[in-house]
């Protein structure tokens, strides 16, 4: 059988490099090449990965790609989705799906109209401890879920992440979508109310860098999330993903990135850690390739991307109005 032809659109998001390395290892995928609106970056990455660089979308899609992975700045997800839909290429789109609900809805309908599959890239759904926890919850191991305390801490990211025009939001948007998606996946419920305190007091940039959300699902389960970029440069790891789940008959604790070894290297001047955990990116990319290959329904849909985005947008609205916000958000006029 022919290999599935996949291209990567933009290396603005550093995950493009992780996904690309996976593509090279997946035997039924052909990593056709890279398009990037930043030609210098695109050429450099193409050279590093040993694939072709295409300077225009036209040349890129002339390759008759079966699928693309979009890793542009968040605000450009819509235009790249439109191009991919036009070329009938299935899409794996980096999170957050977009910077507002209007664009996200448009992306989903563009894909529907073109008859292509749209998948949102939430790699955390492929972390073995997360997958196992969901299975345990489903088996009734700790009874009903009552409450969840989550963190998705990080360090300050570089470049466009702190430029609101391109990213759509800071720490709260960047990290809330991951956890909101996992909790929707666990509870099989939508978020009903969101409250958030948000600030930009750590780095004093023009974008939010810290905050805490407290939200409630339709079934009364409540959850908190700290999505702050609060890990200083001297911190031994980049960040974390933790979920403390309180159930009726017990508790489950997930510390997804705790599989590490300690490294004491004089060159870095600090204690650091290296992961020995499984590669969640590989699970995600392989799932995307298989979705195309076997004509499957996307495991993580555009709607999943949109509902996770809505929680983050609700958090911003809550912080601005200093009150609890009900979801779904009302359409902006």
């Amino acid at each position, binding site marked *: 059988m022919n290999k599935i032809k996949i291209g990567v659109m933009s290396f603005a998001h550093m995950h493009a490099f992780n996904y690309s390395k996976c593509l090279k290892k997946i035997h039924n995928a052909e990593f056709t090449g890279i398009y990037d609106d930043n030609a210098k970056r695109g050429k450099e990455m193409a050279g590093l990965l040993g694939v072709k660089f295409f300077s225009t979308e036209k040349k890129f899609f002339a390759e008759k790609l079966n699928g693309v992975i979009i890793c542009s700045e968040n605000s450009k997800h819509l235009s790249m989705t439109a191009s991919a839909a036009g070329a009938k290429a299935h899409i794996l789109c980096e999170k957050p799906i977009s910077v507002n609900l209007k664009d996200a809805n448009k992306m989903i309908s563009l894909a529907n109209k073109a008859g292509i599959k749209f998948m949102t890239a939430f790699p955390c759904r492929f972390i073995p401890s997360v997958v196992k926890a969901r299975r345990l919850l489903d088996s009734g191991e700790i009874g009903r879920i*009552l*409450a969840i*305390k989550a*963190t998705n801490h990080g360090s300050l990211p570089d470049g466009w992440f702190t430029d609101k025009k391109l990213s759509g939001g800071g720490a709260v948007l960047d990290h809330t979508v991951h956890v909101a998606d996992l909790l929707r996946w666990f509870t099989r419920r939508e978020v009903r*109310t969101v*409250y*958030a*305190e*948000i*600030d930009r*007091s*750590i*780095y*004093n940039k023009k974008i939010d*860098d*810290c*905050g*805490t*959300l*407290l939200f*409630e699902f339709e079934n*009364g389960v*409540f*959850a*908190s999330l*700290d999505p*702050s970029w*609060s*890990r*200083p440069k*001297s*911190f031994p790891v980049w960040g974390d993903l933790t979920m*403390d789940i*309180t159930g*009726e008959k*017990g*508790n489950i604790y997930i510390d997804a990135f705790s599989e590490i070894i300690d490294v004491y290297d004089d060159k870095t001047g600090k204690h650091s850690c290296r992961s020995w955990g499984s590669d969640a990116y590989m699970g995600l990319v392989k799932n995307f390739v298989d979705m195309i290959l076997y004509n499957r329904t996307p495991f993580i849909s555009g709607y999943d991307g949109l509902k996770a985005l809505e929680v983050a947008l609700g958090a911003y609205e809550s912080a601005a109005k*200093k*009150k*609890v916000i009900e979801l779904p958000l009302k359409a902006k006029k």
Partner: protein
Amino acid sequence: MLKVGIIGFGKMGRKHLESFKRIPGVSICGIFDASPGKIQEAGLKTCPDYKHLIKECDVICIATPTDTHKQYILEAIAVGRPVFVEKPLCRTVEEAEEVMQAVKKYKAKVMVGHVVRYFNQYAAIKKAIADGCVGKPAVARITRCSKFPKASNNWFNSREKSGGVILDLMIHDIDFLIWCFGDVERVYAKDIGREKIPNMDYALAVIRFKNGVIAHLEASWALSGGFRARVEVAGTEGLVNYDSRHPASLKVEHSDGNVIRENPVDENANQMEIREFVEYVLNDELPKTTLHDAYEALKVSLAALESVKSGAVVKLRRGKSE
């Protein structure tokens, strides 16, 4: 000799008795408990009438269920007895106002047992922040989890008496954060009260301080065993963190598989707070836990409970006695 009368002989009453006994110049005048059997079992003499005890002693230590604190405090300070009362100060804002007015009227000395300030690890966190280790603090996370506490008549299971995990457990960390960051602007909280599960409680809260710090608090009486406490503060220039799971300085493994982890200290936190109370009474030295802060911690905890009930954000208001 400073004669101490103890009212309430549950877990905390016993602890405070041990602490008072170790302080030179202090003697135990008597112990009162609504169920005197507990005192007799411990081989101690019970005092049948608390009013008599208040009259006989020099200072009073109150460690009864929360909803009875006010009455004992008022009776003790009305006759000039300094009071050490287990946290929380009392059960409601109205009771607290009454106590604060009476304290003013009688110029009484009342100290509330917010013991977390006396734990070396928490004092070290506060000092590290003060030393500038995190720069300007931005976000704090604080956690306190244990199994459901045992007590007579299972009074912790009664919201009316104890105020649940927010008023009895989270208040420790609320007090610590007030110590570090000052006054609270607003609070939003959720708990599992609606589930009405006996002998279990769990709550999460978000607090915005007037100085801008955002704090997340977790309090759990839902562990099957053990204890976990954590605090983390991140700011413009760094981060400090304490976790009770950090390796202990002493670990004992028994052949039956039982493991004991311990960090022995020169003077334990309960001992320290009682010593400060005695020094406050005898030498007028102000303790680390001021009555004002205890009153604030109570107001914030009750505001969190109010938020749970209303589902809305609660802004802190000035009390009548401020």
